[in-house]
């Protein structure tokens, strides 16, 4: 009798409506936002290399943020990008934004605002956003490397590039010290069309793409990648507090969420085995 009751309980548990599972998930996701745990995690070698490379850039360097395809709004990579903006925002480093997809016209100004970059830096002198040029990166990227002003002519808001002070000393690939890419699917074209000019590339990529891109690093085409949101969290830890601070929060939620899924799966398996013994399954 007692066994039967336990079987009924287990079978009820196994048939639990997913809505309840989802409700607990939501609570577990919101909890670390309100009560941050700041669980410890280690800093990966690659993130450290990215941080040190940016830290060692000489004053007056020019950084191009190019890429950020239609995955730009996948926030997995933006934590690292915003941490990067925070790292360079108090130094004399110039930023040129060159979108390779119409959607990154939306993403990059947003990221700049969130990082508070536009409050510290002056538009036109320290940073600039160029217009999206259709035609595919296999045409635009080589042209950009050869002659920036010839390709773009104006910035996003229609000002001719000659009138912007940032372009006084910037003409072609020789003046670019670093290329960063926030996104993922533009990396293939960057490797093909930017790497041959010996411009160092740093990619803030998705964890799904991170193992896929390792051969590029091994071949010396790309300097380093950060690994998804985990890399973002590590970058945030290195830079210190950033206003967005998504990565650190995510690491807390990761802990809770993964333990929760683990418990659920263990319960499900115990239930299945008990019911199997009772001959119910």
């Amino acid at each position, binding site marked *: 009798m007692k066994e039967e009751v336990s079987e009924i309980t287990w079978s009820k548990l*196994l048939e*639990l409506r*997913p809505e309840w*599972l*989802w409700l607990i*998930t*939501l609570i577990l*996701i919101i909890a670390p936002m309100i009560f941050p745990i700041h*669980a*410890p*995690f*280690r800093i990966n070698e690659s993130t450290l290399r990215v941080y040190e490379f940016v830290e060692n850039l000489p004053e007056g360097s020019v950084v191009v943020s190019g890429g950020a395809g239609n995955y730009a*709004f*996948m*926030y997995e990579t933006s934590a690292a990008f915003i941490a990067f903006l925070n790292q360079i925002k108090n130094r004399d480093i110039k930023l040129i934004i060159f979108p390779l997809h*119409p959607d990154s*016209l*939306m993403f990059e*100004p*947003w990221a700049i605002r969130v990082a508070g970059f536009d409050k510290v830096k002056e538009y036109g002198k320290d940073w600039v956003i160029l*217009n*999206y040029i259709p035609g595919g990166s296999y045409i635009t990227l080589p042209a950009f490397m050869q002659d920036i002003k010839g390709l773009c002519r104006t910035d*996003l*808001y229609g000002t001719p590039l000659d009138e912007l002070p940032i372009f006084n000393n910037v003409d072609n690939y020789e003046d670019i010290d670093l290329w960063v890419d926030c996104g993922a699917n533009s990396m293939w074209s960057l490797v093909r069309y930017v790497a041959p000019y010996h411009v160092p590339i740093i990619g803030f990529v998705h*964890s799904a793409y991170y*193992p896929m891109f390792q051969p590029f690093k091994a071949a010396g085409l790309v300097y380093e990648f950060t690994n998804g949101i*985990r890399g973002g969290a590590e970058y945030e830890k290195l830079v210190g507090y950033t206003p967005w601070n998504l990565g650190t929060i995510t*690491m807390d939620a*990761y*802990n809770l*969420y*993964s*333990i*929760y*899924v*683990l418990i*659920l*799966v263990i319960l*499900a*398996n115990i239930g*299945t*085995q008990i019911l*199997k013994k009772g001959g119910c*399954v």
Partner: protein
Amino acid sequence: MSKVLYRDIMPYLLFIICFIPTLFSYYFNIPLLSKLTYELRGWSTLIGVTAMFLGLCNIIIYNYRTIKERKAGWQFGVYTIVLVFSWIIAGLYFGGLASPAYQQMYIYIKAQCWSAQIGLLTFFFVSAAFRTFRAKNLQALVLLIFAFIPFIGLAPWGEQIWPGWPAFSSWILDNVAMAGSRAIVIAASVGLVVMITRIVLRYEKGGLVRG
């Protein structure tokens, strides 16, 4: 006869005319061929972009039918049609993608919907894991065990209980997962070539039907 010519043979010939130069320009170094292929790529991109008008028509027809038949929630049909056109008009009025007003619209409506939708995956993972990862037989047990090695390796507490866990999980991903996915990829490539050959030999229609 002419019906067959226009409806069956001509589209097929057009397909072959586009297929052969594009394929052969990959293998042979003939300047004329690569120039032709470059043009054809441009053509197919242009046609692909123009097809958006069909998409617009389809969405209007679908919603119009919902309204006409007074199906449940037909009001949303009206809403969709109105919103599509007002979005297009607003976008063109504001001056396109670069304008700040359009960027506001994009970020707070479209991107917000996007991230909310994709966020549903987090929840679905929980219920899918609960439903699937049950060791009903040996195969399911293998699936379960190998799923949890990278899972714990990625979680920050995984490296706290055993420092070697991240390395172990990446070893599993680089070797076990890679072996399986490599087999899938190789086999699929053979199937793909045979499939395309079938279309070229006209044993299979693909998209080339009369309608």
